[in-house]
């Protein structure tokens, strides 16, 4: 009996308290939203294939990128790895039978769905056009769209994040198996822990800020409108206090996945395990100190700008450690280029490029020129799409046998990874150049001089779309027709591999022994 065969009714899924089933529920839900956001992206790129605003009008375009940003950030990327793979794996990896609060866990999924309904309602009613940043006073006084409805969706989905984070924190503190000390935990669990801390500390700030924004929009009382004695920059401070840490919510889990996959397919212990763990905590901690780098030309004090710039460079140091350590892990390994490994290496490369261009943006004077241009768009897509989405797919493939009990088609998977990598670079690399040349973001029309680069980008996006549709097809196929997976197809070391594929309802039939150190791989003993 596996957790998948514990009941076949709809109710046994929708009201399950099993963290593994909840992980799957989340995976399905975020896939829907990923494609919703993806369709918006497709329309954006189609519109931008020509300099004139011919495919969609200005207002429609504005609603498209807002929908795209809101959906991709809050309904896809933030829950992506934590709520799917994290839910599935955290208890397994620490040798627990459940999360600490299973009922809160399913509640969190339902809250997510409720939040999603708000977004769908916004879309059906006519959309929202503020940009994912909801800047006041545009959002409070000038927009003629469904701002409050959209904000309510984000507000609600925030509580689902909070509950997931709370659950992970308590689970990791209280439910580790005997012998599973902190420094024997897989780096994925470390990443989940740090992510959860950010989730519980930052998300409430967003919730309250959006509430104040909505109140101001509805009743014209509040603290952001200068006519009432408020300050629009206060909104920006509060928004970025949440949203900068949120970008680490989006990248730390991906780093966790990369660490698991790279060690496994290099057959080598992660290089500098302790440094890697500290770096995760360092990123989470420093991540709270840098939000003002989004406001260098906003009218913020230039001295505050300098402080935030310096702190932004501090947060780049632990990221550097991670990149170097992943590279060093390859040294003297026995590297197999399976699909998950290709995704993971792709993650490292694209994250590095995205991160390095973050250094441009953090350099005050350069940001004066680059802020609000396509350079920024390229920067964050490199990290979020090139980095995190790649890692998410890597993780999906890596743990697919564990989750579904079936193998995916390896060759197709490798091809898809390469298509994605190529399509991605073609889409977003030209945008760096566009940004430097001064093409502002959120433009549906642009100077004809810039058409070539935009056409390249749109062409890349269509290749990227193919890259994403491939796994959708073959993974769905593999779910029912794939080869049966053994318990440990990759000869990997984590506790999740010590149980059957798929695992029984209570995760372990017999409690496995916790190893002395994590990742006891040896490159000289290559599996057959």
């Amino acid at each position, binding site marked *: 009996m596996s957790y998948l065969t514990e009941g076949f009714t709809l109710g046994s899924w929708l009201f399950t308290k099993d963290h593994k089933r909840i992980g799957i529920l989340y995976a399905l839900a975020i896939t829907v939203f990923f494609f919703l956001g993806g369709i918006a992206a497709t329309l954006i790129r189609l519109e931008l294939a020509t300099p004139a605003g011919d495919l969609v009008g200005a207002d429609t375009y504005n609603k498209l990128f807002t929908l795209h940003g809101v959906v991709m950030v809050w309904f896809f990327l933030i829950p992506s790895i934590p709520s799917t793979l994290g839910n599935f794996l955290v208890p397994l990896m620490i040798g627990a039978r459940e999360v600490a609060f299973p009922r809160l866990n399913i509640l969190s999924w339902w809250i997510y769905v409720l939040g999603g309904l708000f977004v769908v309602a916004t879309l059906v009613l006519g959309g929202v056009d503020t940009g994912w940043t909801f800047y006041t006073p545009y959002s409070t006084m000038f927009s003629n769209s469904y701002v409050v409805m959209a904000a309510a969706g984000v507000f609600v989905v925030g509580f689902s994040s909070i509950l997931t984070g709370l659950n992970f924190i308590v689970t990791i503190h209280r439910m580790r198996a005997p012998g599973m000390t902190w420094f024997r935990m897989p780096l994925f669990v470390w990443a989940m822990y740090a992510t959860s801390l950010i989730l519980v500390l930052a998300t409430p700030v967003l919730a309250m800020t959006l509430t104040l924004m909505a109140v101001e929009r509805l009743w014209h009382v509040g603290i952001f409108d200068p006519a009432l004695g408020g300050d629009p920059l206060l909104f920006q401070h509060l928004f970025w206090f949440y949203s900068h840490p949120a970008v680490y919510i989006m990248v730390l889990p991906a780093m966790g996945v990369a660490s698991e996959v790279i060690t496994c397919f290099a057959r080598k212990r992660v290089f500098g395990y302790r440094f890697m763990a500290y770096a995760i905590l360092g990123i989470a901690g420093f991540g709270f*100190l840098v939000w003002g780098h989004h406001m260098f030309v906003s009218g*913020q004090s230039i001295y*505050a700008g300098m*402080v935030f710039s310096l702190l932004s460079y501090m947060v780049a140091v632990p990221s550097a450690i991670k990149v170097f350590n992943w590279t060093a892990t390859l040294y003297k390994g026995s590297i197999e280029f399976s699909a998950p490994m290709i995704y993971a290496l792709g993650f490292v490369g694209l994250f590095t490029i995205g991160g390095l261009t973050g250094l441009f943006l953090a350099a005050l004077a350069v940001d004066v020129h680059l802020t609000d241009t396509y350079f920024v768009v390229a920067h964050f897509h490199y990290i979020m799409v090139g980095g995190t989405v790649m890692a998410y797919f890597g993780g999906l493939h890596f743990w697919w046998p564990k989750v579904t009990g079936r193998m995916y088609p390896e060759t197709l998977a490798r091809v898809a990874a390469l298509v994605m990598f190529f399509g991605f670079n073609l889409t977003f690399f030209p945008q760096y150049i566009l940004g430097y040349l001064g093409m502002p973001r959120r433009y549906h029309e642009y100077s004809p001089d810039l058409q070539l680069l935009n056409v390249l980008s749109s062409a890349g996006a269509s290749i990227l779309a193919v890259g994403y549709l491939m796994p959708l097809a073959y993974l769905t196929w593999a779910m029912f027709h794939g080869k049966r997976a053994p318990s440990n197809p990759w000869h990997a070391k984590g506790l999740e591999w010590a149980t059957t594929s798929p695992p029984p309802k209570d995760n372990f039939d017999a409690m496995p022994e916790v190893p002395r150190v994590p990742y006891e791989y040896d490159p000289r003993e290559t599996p057959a």
Partner: protein
Amino acid sequence: MTKSPARAYWITWAALLGLLAATFALAHVRLGNLNAAVGIAIGAVKALLVVLFFMKLRSASTLLVVFAVAGLIALAVLFGLSGADYATRTTTPAPWSSP
């Protein structure tokens, strides 16, 4: 669970009400800028009493203490760094004045 003796609860309560009386009285005395500081400081002491004795943080594990303090640190960051902006912002209050 450690059982705090009833006496400690009564003493805490008495101290809280005492501080309440004190802060109310002090608010009627002109202390200039200190009034606000005193009000908040006494509030902080009261909060500390509640947290330590009623919420039993005094006898709780370090872990709980860490989580209790974490929020304060995060708030300090929020207040501190946004305050850094407000404290050093040079606004041009009107169009013709020099910055």
